[in-house]
């Protein structure tokens, strides 16, 4: 457990912080402009999207440099720019943005990965006729995501959060003519809604308690000691403090976005969208938003934790994360769709991040988030390149031997895969995962998460090897021959690959630049960072685990991957559990028979009520009135009508006489008018006389 961080609050925000809002604003504006473009203006659209995002990247880098510089001079800084949005009587809703190491790192990551993926998309979506629409959505997403990152107010964050959800929905359903895609989009939207409802509850409660939604506001913010103390003071149900309860609610929202265990079902299906989308949204950035949210409200989650202790909220986060990690990894083992495998691995890696947050604090989780963003984006883009090269083929069993056909893709993909497995020393994944494992090892509450995570690591290595074996080794099992992708797709791969390897440097125990930067502590290079008790042992252990996984995978799938028709190797070995895993442990089916079935039943009940009960009542009333009407009719026809008819005849004749006046001649009317005038004037004069 880390000690509480001390940031020097900045009173006067620096110019770069003042214009921070431009970072999300520019892509959003760009998307608005693109939305107005005509269909065939493809180049313009792409240019706008990429240009705007590179502008944002530039600003982000400036901001990052600014923060880093300030940090290097000693102590992290946190600059906020707040303004009142709505003023209702005495209470007023404030919005604002914050610039601190966390935001800075995340900004650079999102903008950079996003930019690469934009460039990649220009190649990948080349043949799509809705090119402009695609880039419109993409840059809207980028803007919203950047907004999430910089927002200093829970409300603003939530707005951008929802925008992100919306764009995710739009992009998953981008090929809405495919029913599967449409269904997936709906599913994603609904599932995340479930989380967001809790999130919203949390927000409202938070606001009710602290009276402000600003995170940091020079001491008056909701994440600052004063407010937190107030929150701790009063207790919600089941021995939770208000802080804890709110934390849990917010975590529910985060779980929805980051696909943590009960709400993970949408993420694999989201792979129906275009691959760049999967890479950008459902691997690198958006799903990380949940993790980022937890990191952002960490003070809240952590509130009330004695030094070295933990809180209920964090415990829950940890358990959910750890469980998700293992659970998703298990499912990933038995998938055949190249993107689904990656999707489940994403879920499990998110689990790692959550666990890291829960046990190791912001730095640990965020470090894994950043590294993961790079190598997972790399993997997805690689998968996209593979799919592209195999003519939209996604089933790994119909690929194989691609290492000769698409060498560049193979190399980069291998790098990404090793990084994901956490191959020792050279790859960023190793360091970040190690950080988590280390934190887990020292966790005070329980040891179980540690073992779960280790097992998860093993599985990760295994299924990735399986996938690579299927895709790149063995012999070609598809129909049409594969081809390498264009440079516009492979160059981003190369760049990402470089970062997937290099990024580890900033997180080694010897030189924990990242942690130091986030915590705003001074940084010292000391080799004895490795000398911490058990660290070497841990590293060795994880290395062994990884190697074991790789070896196992290679032994089963290396070289001789089975034909599509043949059952999988494992399937032959252990058919029953394989079946479970292959069907994703029946979670969807479970929801099907519980939640959805319940809704259907409830709908039927309501329907029955409408038909029988209310319908019956209405019908009864109707009958009553009918009877009454019959009676009236009888009375009318026999007594009333006679009188009426006579009167009506009189009226008709009178009307006929009157209608003579309505000759339809203008001049007649004019004449009457003039006469009236004469009369009036005469009266006036007469009266004035007297």
């Amino acid at each position, binding site marked *: 457990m880390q000690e509480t961080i001390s940031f020097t609050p900045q009173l006067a925000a620096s110019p770069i912080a003042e214009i921070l809002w431009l970072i999300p604003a520019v892509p959003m504006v760009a998307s608005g402009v693109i939305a107005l473009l005509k269909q065939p203006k493809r180049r313009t659209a792409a240019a706008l999207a990429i240009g705007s995002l590179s502008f944002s990247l530039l600003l982000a880098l400036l901001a990052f440099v600014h923060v880093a510089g300030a940090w290097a001079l000693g102590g992290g800084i946190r600059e906020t720019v707040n303004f009142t949005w709505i003023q209702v009587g005495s209470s007023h809703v404030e919005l604002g943005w914050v610039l601190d190491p966390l935001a800075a790192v995340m900004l650079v990551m999102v903008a950079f990965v996003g930019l690469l993926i934009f460039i990649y998309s220009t190649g990948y979506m080349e043949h799509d006729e809705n090119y402009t629409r695609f880039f419109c959505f993409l840059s809207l997403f980028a803007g919203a995501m950047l907004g999430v990152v910089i927002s200093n107010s829970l409300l603003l964050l939530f707005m951008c959060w929802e925008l992100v959800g919306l764009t995710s929905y739009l992009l998953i359903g981008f090929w809405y003519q495919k029913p599967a895609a449409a269904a997936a989009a709906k599913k994603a939207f609904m599932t995340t809604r479930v989380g967001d409802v809790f999130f919203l509850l949390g927000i409202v409660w938070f606001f009710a308690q602290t009276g402000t939604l600003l995170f940091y506001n020079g001491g008056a913010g909701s994440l600052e000691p004063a407010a937190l103390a107030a929150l701790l003071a009063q207790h919600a149900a089941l021995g939770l403090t208000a802080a804890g309860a709110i934390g849990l609610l917010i975590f529910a929202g985060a779980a929805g976005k980051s696909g943590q265990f009960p709400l993970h079902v949408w993420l694999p299906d989201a792979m129906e969208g275009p691959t760049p989308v999967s890479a950008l949204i459902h691997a690198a950035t958006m799903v990380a938003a949940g993790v980022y949210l937890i990191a952002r409200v960490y003070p809240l989650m952590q509130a009330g934790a004695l030094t070295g202790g933990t809180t209920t909220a964090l415990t829950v986060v940890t358990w959910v994360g750890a469980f998700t990690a293992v659970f998703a990894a298990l499912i990933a083992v038995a998938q055949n769709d190249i993107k689904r495998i990656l999707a489940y691995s994403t879920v499990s890696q998110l689990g790692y991040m959550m666990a890291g947050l829960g046990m190791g604090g912001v730095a640990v989780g965020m470090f894994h988030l950043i590294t993961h963003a790079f190598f997972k984006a790399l993997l997805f883009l690689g998968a996209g390149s593979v799919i592209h090269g195999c003519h939209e083929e996604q089933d790994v069993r119909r690929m194989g031997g691609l290492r000769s056909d698409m060498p560049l893709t193979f190399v980069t993909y291998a790098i990404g895969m090793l990084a994901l497995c956490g191959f020792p020393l050279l790859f960023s994944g190793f360091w970040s995962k190690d950080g988590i494992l280390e934190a887990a090892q020292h966790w005070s509450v329980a040891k179980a998460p540690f073992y779960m995570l280790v097992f998860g690591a093993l599985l990760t290595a295994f299924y990735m090897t399986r996938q690579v074996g299927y895709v790149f080794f063995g012999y070609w099992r598809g129909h049409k021959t594969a081809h390498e992708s264009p440079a516009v797709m492979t160059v981003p791969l190369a760049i990402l690959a470089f970062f997937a390897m290099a990024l580890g440097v900033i997180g080694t125990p010897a030189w924990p630049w990242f942690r130091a930067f986030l915590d705003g502590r001074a940084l010292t290079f000391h080799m004895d960072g490795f000398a911490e008790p058990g660290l070497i042992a841990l590293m060795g252990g994880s290395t062994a685990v990884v190697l074991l996984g790789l070896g196992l995978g290679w032994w089963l799938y290396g070289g001789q991957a089975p034909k599509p028709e043949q059952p999988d190797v494992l399937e032959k070995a252990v058919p029953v559990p394989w079946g479970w895993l292959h069907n994703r442990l029946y979670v969807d089916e479970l929801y099907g028979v519980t939640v959805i079935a319940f809704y259907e039943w409830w709908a039927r009940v309501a329907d029955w009520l409408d038909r029988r009960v209310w319908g019956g009542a209405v019908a009864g009333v109707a009958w009553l009135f009918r009877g009454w009407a019959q009676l009236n009719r009888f009375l009318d026809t026999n007594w009333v009508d006679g009188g009426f008819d006579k009167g009506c005849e009189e009226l008709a004749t009178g009307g006929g006489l*009157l*209608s*003579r*006046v*309505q*000759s*339809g*001649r*203008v*001049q007649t009317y*004019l*004449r009457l008018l*003039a006469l009236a005038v004469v009369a009036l004037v005469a009266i006036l004069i007469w009266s004035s006389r007297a």
Partner: protein
Amino acid sequence: MTPLAGYLLVAALLFAIGLAGALTRRNAILVLISIELMLNAANLNLIAFWRYGPHPEALTGMMFAIFSIAVAAAEAAVGLGLVISIYRHAHTTDIDLMNRMKG
């Protein structure tokens, strides 16, 4: 007879002439012409009152006249437009025959 009264009488006479025209002519355009005459008579009144009124510096009557000139122009445009479109439909401008609104 004071000059004001003189102008007022002229205006009244012009108004009456216009009214007579509007009441007796059969050609819709001429009815419009007559209405224009009536409007102008009113303008003459306004100007005369402005000139001989107690507060000429307030320019009220003048303004009134100018505005009514502008409005009259608009009225003429729309009225003639209506006449023309009616002529297109009924091929006549004789308002004795335009009694489709007959009750």
